[in-house]
């Protein structure tokens, strides 16, 4: 990647990112917001994390490929992490169990 292309991509992406990250804070901080707006804001965390998880686990191309293991193993590992997360609320435990579970599901069948 040449320097000019990098600077264009980096500069524009950085400007967009800073606008998305900082503008809402500066526009809304310290304001007396309507009750309905605050109620909507408080639904953001569950909605955002559900969206992030779904985005990571669901890939239409993998589902259409017909290879169940391709998308089924991460889904199975995620289900185990969900149980661990619900019981422990520990991020470290979730990461260790999640990555470990996916590694076992991915590599162990190949060894058998």
């Amino acid at each position, binding site marked *: 990647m040449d320097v000019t292309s990098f600077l264009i991509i980096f500069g524009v992406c950085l400007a967009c990112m800073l606008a998305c990250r900082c503008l809402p804070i500066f526009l809304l901080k310290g304001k007396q917001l309507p009750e309905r707006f605050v109620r909507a804001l408080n639904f953001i965390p569950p909605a955002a994390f559900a969206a992030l998880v*779904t985005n990571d686990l669901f890939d239409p191309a993998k589902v259409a490929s017909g290879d169940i293991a391709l998308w089924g193993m991460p889904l199975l590992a995620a289900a185990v*992490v969900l149980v661990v997360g619900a019981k422990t609320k520990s991020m470290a435990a979730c990461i260790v169990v999640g990555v470990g579970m996916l590694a076992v599901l991915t590599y162990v069948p190949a060894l058998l």
Partner: protein
Amino acid sequence: MKYLCVTVGKAAAPFYNHGTMSETNLKQNQAAVESAAAERDGAESGVVESAASEPVVAETSVAHKSGVSAAMQKEAFQAAWPIVLGYIVLGIPCGILGVAAGMDVWMIAIMSLLFYSGAGQYMIPNMWLAGNPISAIIASVALVNTRQMLYGASLSQFCGSAGKRLAFIFGATVTDESFGVNLARMINGNWSVKHALLVNLFSLTSWTVSNVAGALIGSAISLPTALASFAMTSLFICLLCMQKVTPANLVAVFGSIAGVIACKCVGLAGPAILIGALVGVGAAFAFSSVHHDNRNTTMKVGE
């Protein structure tokens, strides 16, 4: 941290506390707060129990000037370390990928430090290697990162009394992971913007260092990207588990899932997270309006 509960007053605090942090975490936080208070008391009374008094005095002086105590840093690191761990695992292959796309180490360093986006930094080299035009790369990366607006809007409730510089640096260093970690603690009531900024900075440092390390070591080591990225998926699942289980929140979750799946099925992969999350928020809002569920209406102003 203090915040003003406009609609339901202090009665809202137990509602927010429940389900956001485990009992163990609450005890740890309480112990940390007591430890911080004890440290402050010691500093104010001039009693410093150490043989090497000069360095301690100097450190205390710096801490007072910056408003960041050692106890605050310790609390922040305790909150941030799972993110730090995940970023190390995910940052190294990201740096390797950048080098593969022809990026110099300084490019990777500056991008990690200022742009600071895992999704974006994986997309840029991948799209570049695939021969996409610059305009397509920029549009795709910008669309994927629009979800950050939701985090800023949500965190703005806790930045009421933060200065402009603090609010800017805090806002500019928010990521998916640090948003979840900080918001849970801010709602709990004993987490200031400075605490949150420290979490962001620890995470940013680990991301930048591991990206640069990945760029320097190149392909000398091989980390499976699918496994590395699943560390972050696991973290998101845990953050999801920390949310309070209410009918309206469940509607938000299933609305988001349906929204993301629908977006990706029709080829809108770029804005899928933003649109999915907005669908979830909209569905939950409509649900709570119909069922007159006003539990999520606490207004928080200030630190």
